[in-house]
């Protein structure tokens, strides 16, 4: 043992040149030492050979150290790949060995990984081992060393480790260049949910570096002053374009980043299955599962491996793969489907017998032979599967979309099946599929074809009905029939034969052939009885005949119409059973009653039926349908039994009747309407609702409160009798305002609310007033008409142009008041108090305007202004109608001339008139021809005391009322006004229809002054203002 250990020491010494060198350096005398060493080595080698031989014999451990250790770096996968050899292993010798590998980070003492790698070592074999680092290799240095030991069972315990190899440094950082900042790992691909370690490496630890993931700052741990590590745990899938992670260095603002690609978890293939259609090719399919989301970066690959044959196929599709089977040599197959990408590999296995996975191809050449009305022979062929393989085929027969027959047939090559119990002239679809009979795996696809059975004679008589109309003494019979159903027709109906047989006359038959698809014909018949036979014909034969008899008697008797209530399902009709023999019943109705064509429908029922439900898709709500129920006698004569009418669904009225108001009184009014509505009615009318709005809060008896849709409250009268056409609204308030609205209602409800009609009840006293006022108005009207007709007479009588004072009624009144002193004043009694003398200057015409107006000269007959400080006692009028004689005794009493303008101003109603007057006045003065003479008539309107000179008031406190005319007088022109007065302009004239009989009093009342002068033309009663004259009302 001691020798062995010494040899081992020597071996180690020999294997370590550094020790050898040291040894040589220490010795200082190389030559004698070298000789000694060579000798010693030779000796020891001889001993070693002997020892090795002995070790085989004695099974002692042999230290074989790993040599030529090489380390390569895979940055993408963060892996270190180690490869080495074991020297000194005997040729063709295998030895089970253990290699202990240590990995340190940053420094050799910081061991982060120790692993024992056991393997069988051959001579000169290159051994490989790899290690994946969680930390990117670029982040810091790594160191690797290893040692070996024997693990062979032949070597007895205890076994010893060999010496460690020296530390091998893995320094990727040195190859990074001089970038101030770097982030690792680059473009890392990971699955979601995994943990990722990221680091940054900076050249200077004085910088402030912050890192962000998805814009959010992340914090790591400082590995060394220049390296910071970030552990990202359970990373989620964010997007298929990757996630930017970046670090920013301050100052400088350098940004460095990486893109982290997180894929979804690569799923295991599902539903892996293989089958064959011809025992030659196996088709394997699977569901690849969900997409990883990173198809560009992580394209999956699929590989199919069969373990018995050891063959392998790389699949070009991600969900299926074909495999060439060898049916003659291999029956069992054991497949392994391996799916993988850079991150993960998934495998699924499948073991099967080839013959148990036969999926036959679809049958072909499906044919139908010997097709009769009820049978057909079906044949088909199948693809052969191997030799003598029997297939089970399934045949399905479809009629009108439903499976009507299903049969299984065993087939080797050709299939055949007789299909029975078919309907004539019917289209069928037959389909067939097959599967392996011995080991059912899967049905083939269906192969289908259709065929039509042959025709047969119609089996049923057509359903016939008639409509009889009387036109000009003849019967027009419209004969209807329903087309036979497919089952009844048993072929294509080509024509209908109608045979007319006169039952009353000699036995004559008339045949009408009506081509299909007609379903009616019109016949003009006399009033004899006829029996009509209708048959349907196809290419094979004729149907039984449908018989209907038209009797001579029309048979229309008055049958009362009954109401029937319809539902969504139709009308349920029932009738009384007939005592006499009937062969059946017919229910007849119009499907479109509002249409003139009506679309007559009927339903034939058996003799024992007394009720039926008539339903139709054509029935519409709000349409009234009329039904007639006929019984068919044994002679095939129909007779009317009952009439029914009804709605499938009643609707509320859509409009309201027009209502008229009558008998409007103070407390009531009557409403009348013409019924509602015009046809068609959407339901049976049940009555009317009257809505009455009023100011009264309480509703009157017979009505109830109702709330209208607009929220307003009113009173509602219910009129239950639909035939009622009038309604009296009573107990109303006089002279009150009401609003009403009448609407009909059916069982479905009332009609829509429309505009309310307004009505106001009469006042209680208005009638009395009318009774009084109407006669009065009539009387007035009569009087007015009379006055108008007798206006001339009236004028003469009541107000002649020249009033005769003696005829004045006033006089009689005065007399009646027994005042004998008051009489008509005589002109002679009038004592003029002054005479106005108007000086007329010849030749002064042109200078008239420049000079002052001529001042009239007053000859005061009575005491002057001084003696009479008040206004004059009498007023004088001019009136040309009076004779000249009168003027001799009485002269005019003109007013002071200085007041002329103002007096004119008061008299005219407009300035134009005033101006015109002034102008006329001026012109007229200037145009007065010399020597012309005119008469001025002055009428004096006396005060009540005018005739009594002695009683003239000296200073009357108030203006005296002039209520009557005095004697009028004519004044010679020499004393009076300007010799000629030109007639005034028309525009300046003030017209008055009558003499100003009361103007004196009016003037007096107002205390104003005005003058009215009648021109020569004014004899006919026209009064003209004369500017040169004035008269006073005082």
């Amino acid at each position, binding site marked *: 043992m001691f020798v062995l250990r010494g040899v081992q020491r020597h071996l180690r010494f020999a294997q370590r040149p550094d020790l050898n060198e040291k040894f040589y350096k220490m010795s200082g005398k190389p030559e004698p030492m070298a000789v000694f060493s060579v000798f010693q080595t030779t000796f020891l080698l001889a001993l070693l050979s002997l020892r090795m031989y002995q070790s085989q014999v004695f099974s002692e451990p042999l230290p074989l150290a790993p040599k030529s250790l090489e380390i390569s770096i895979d940055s993408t996968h963060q892996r270190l790949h180690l490869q080495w050899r074991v020297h000194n292993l005997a040729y063709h010798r295998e030895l089970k060995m253990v290699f202990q590998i240590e990995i340190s980070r940053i420094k050799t003492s910081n061991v982060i990984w120790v692993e024992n790698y056991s393997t069988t070592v051959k001579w000169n074999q290159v051994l490989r081992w790899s290690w994946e680092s969680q930390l990117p290799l670029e982040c810091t240095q790594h160191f690797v060393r290893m040692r070996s030991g024997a693990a062979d069972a032949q070597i007895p315990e205890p076994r010893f480790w060999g010496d460690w190899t020296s530390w091998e440094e893995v320094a990727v950082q040195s190859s990074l260049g001089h970038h101030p900042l770097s*982030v690792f790992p*680059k*473009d890392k691909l990971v699955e979601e949910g995994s943990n990722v370690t990221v680091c940054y490496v900076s050249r200077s630890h004085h910088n402030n570096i912050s890192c*962000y993931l*998805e*814009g959010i700052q992340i914090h790591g741990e400082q590995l060394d002053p220049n390296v910071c590590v970030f552990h990202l745990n359970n990373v989620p899938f964010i997007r*298929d*374009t*990757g*996630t*930017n992670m*970046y670090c*920013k260095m301050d100052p400088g*603002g*350098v*940004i*460095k*980043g*990486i*893109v982290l690609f997180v894929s979804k978890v690569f799923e295991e293939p599902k539903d892996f299955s293989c089958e064959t259609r011809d025992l030659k090719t196996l088709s394997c399919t699977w569901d690849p599962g969900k997409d990883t989301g990173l198809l*560009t970066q992580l394209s999956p690959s699929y590989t199919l491996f069969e373990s018995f044959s050891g063959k392998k196929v790389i699949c070009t599709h991600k969900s299926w793969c074909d495999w060439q089977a060898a049916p003659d040599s291999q029956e069992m197959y054991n497949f392994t489907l391996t799916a993988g990408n850079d991150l993960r590999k998934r495998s699924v296995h499948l073991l099967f017998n080839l013959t148990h996975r036969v999926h036959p191809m679809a049958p072909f050449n499906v044919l139908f032979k010997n097709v009769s009305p009820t049978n057909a022979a079906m044949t088909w062929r199948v693809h052969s599967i191997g030799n003598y393989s029997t297939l089970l085929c399934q045949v399905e027969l479809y009629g009108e979309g439903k499976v009507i027959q299903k049969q299984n047939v065993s087939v080797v090559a050709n299939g055949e099946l007789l299909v029975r119990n078919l309907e004539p002239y019917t289209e069928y679809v037959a389909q067939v599929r097959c599967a392996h009979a011995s080991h059912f795996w899967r049905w083939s696809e269906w192969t289908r074809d259709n065929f039509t059975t042959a025709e047969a004679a119609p089996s049923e008589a057509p359903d016939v009905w008639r409509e009889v109309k009387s036109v000009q003494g003849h019967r027009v019979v419209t004969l209807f029939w329903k087309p036979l159903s497919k089952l009844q027709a048993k072929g294509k109906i080509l024509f209908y034969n109608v045979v007319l047989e006169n039952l009353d006359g000699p036995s004559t038959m008339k045949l009408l052939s009506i081509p299909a698809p007609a379903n009616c014909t019109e016949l003009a018949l006399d009033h004899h009885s006829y029996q009509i036979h209708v048959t349907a014909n196809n290419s094979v034969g004729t149907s039984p005949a449908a018989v209907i008899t038209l009797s001579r008697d029309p048979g229309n008797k008055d049958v009362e119409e009954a109401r029937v209530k319809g539902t969504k399902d139709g009308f349920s009709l029932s009738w009384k059973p007939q005592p006499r023999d009937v062969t059946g019943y017919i229910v007849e109705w119009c499907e479109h009653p509002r249409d003139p064509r009506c679309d007559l429908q009927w339903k034939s029922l058996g003799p024992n039926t007394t009720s039926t439900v008539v339903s139709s898709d054509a029935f519409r709500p709000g349409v009234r349908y009329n039904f007639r129920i006929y019984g068919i006698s044994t002679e095939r004569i129909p007779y009317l039994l009952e009439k029914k009418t009804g709605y499938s669904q009643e609707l509320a009225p859509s409009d309201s009747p027009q209502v008229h108001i009558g008998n409007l009184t103070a407390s009531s009014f009557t409403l009348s309407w013409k019924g509602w509505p015009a046809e068609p009615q959407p339901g049976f009318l049940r009555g009317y609702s009257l809505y009455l709005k009023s100011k009264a809060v309480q509703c009157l008896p017979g009505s109830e409160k109702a709330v209208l849709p607009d929220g307003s409250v009113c009173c509602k009268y219910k009129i239950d009798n639909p035939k009622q056409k009038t309604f009296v609204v009573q107990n109303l308030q006089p002279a009150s305002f009401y609003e009403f609205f009448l609407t009909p209602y059916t069982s479905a409800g009332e009609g829509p609310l429309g505009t309310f009609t307004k009505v106001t009840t009469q006042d209680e006293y208005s009638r009395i007033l009318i009774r009084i006022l109407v006669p009065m108005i009539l009387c007035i009207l009569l009087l007015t008409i009379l006055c108008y007709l007798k206006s001339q007479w009236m004028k003469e009588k009541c107000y002649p142009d020249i009033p005769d004072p003696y005829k004045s009624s006033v006089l009689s009144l005065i007399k009646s008041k027994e005042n004998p002193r008051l009489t008509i004043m005589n002109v002679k009694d009038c004592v003029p108090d002054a005479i106005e003398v108007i000086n007329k200057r010849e030749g002064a015409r042109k200078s008239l305007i420049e000079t002052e107006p001529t001042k009239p000269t007053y000859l005061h007959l009575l005491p002057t202004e001084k003696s009479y400080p008040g206004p004059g006692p009498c007023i004088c009028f001019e009136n040309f109608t009076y004779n000249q004689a009168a003027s001799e005794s009485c002269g005019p009493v003109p007013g002071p001339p200085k007041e002329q303008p103002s007096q004119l101003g008061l008299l005219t109603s407009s300035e134009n008139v005033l101006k015109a007057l002034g102008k006329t006045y001026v012109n007229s003065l200037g145009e007065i021809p010399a020597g012309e003479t005119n008469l001025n008539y002055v009428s004096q309107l006396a005060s009540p005391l005018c005739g009594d000179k002695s009683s003239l008031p000296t200073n009357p406190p108030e203006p005296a009322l002039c209520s009557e005319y005095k004697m009028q007088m004519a004044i010679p022109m020499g004393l009076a006004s300007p010799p000629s007065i030109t007639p005034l302009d028309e525009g300046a004239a003030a017209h008055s229809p009558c003499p100003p009989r009361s103007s004196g009093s009016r003037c007096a009342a107002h205390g104003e002054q005005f003058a009215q002068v009648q021109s020569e033309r004014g004899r006919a009663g026209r009064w003209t203002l004369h500017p040169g004259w004035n008269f006073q009302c005082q």
Partner: protein
Amino acid sequence: MKQCRRIWTILREFLSLLLVLHCTHGAGSPLPITPVNATCATRHPCHSNLMNQIRNQLAQLNGSANALFILYYTAQGEPFPNNLDKLCGPNVTDFPPFHANGTEKSRLVELYRIIAYLGPSLGNITRDQKVLNPNALSLHSKLNATADIMRGLLSNVLCRLCNKYHVAHVDVAYGPDTSGKDVFQKKKLGCQLLGKYKQVIAVVAQAF
């Protein structure tokens, strides 16, 4: 006679020296060295209004450059949109220069180099973006449209150079190949190039 021969020798040596100097300068420079009388033929006749076409194409490129730039950096995600100065700054060192105040010929030659530089670079960007942002169809479309216009512009500039200035060949430089770079670096290089392109095309369009 000897003197004459000496003079001729000196002159010949001088000319040779000049030629050598000229060749030395030309070898290191991308300036065209096509002789004036060299054959210069284009496959198709040039458009009569070539300069207008060039101007229009430049205007078209200038009009769409900013939108392309925005579209690009938006598609790259954070931190690109918020760190344009650091990640997308026009720090392209080997980008061909352009002197707006040069002659038309020199401007056309420089334009040719720029377009020749940009064309493949845009191709690289388009290729990268189709992988990195497969759903950014608008960006792909704009990149393709820009590349199409550049191809037309390159053809027009070459036509002009050939027809008017008899320049048949221009030495060009290309941008860095991004195929070996990491994804973040690809994004950054693309952004820088488009930023530079946006900046340069404005000057070029203005110069023409």
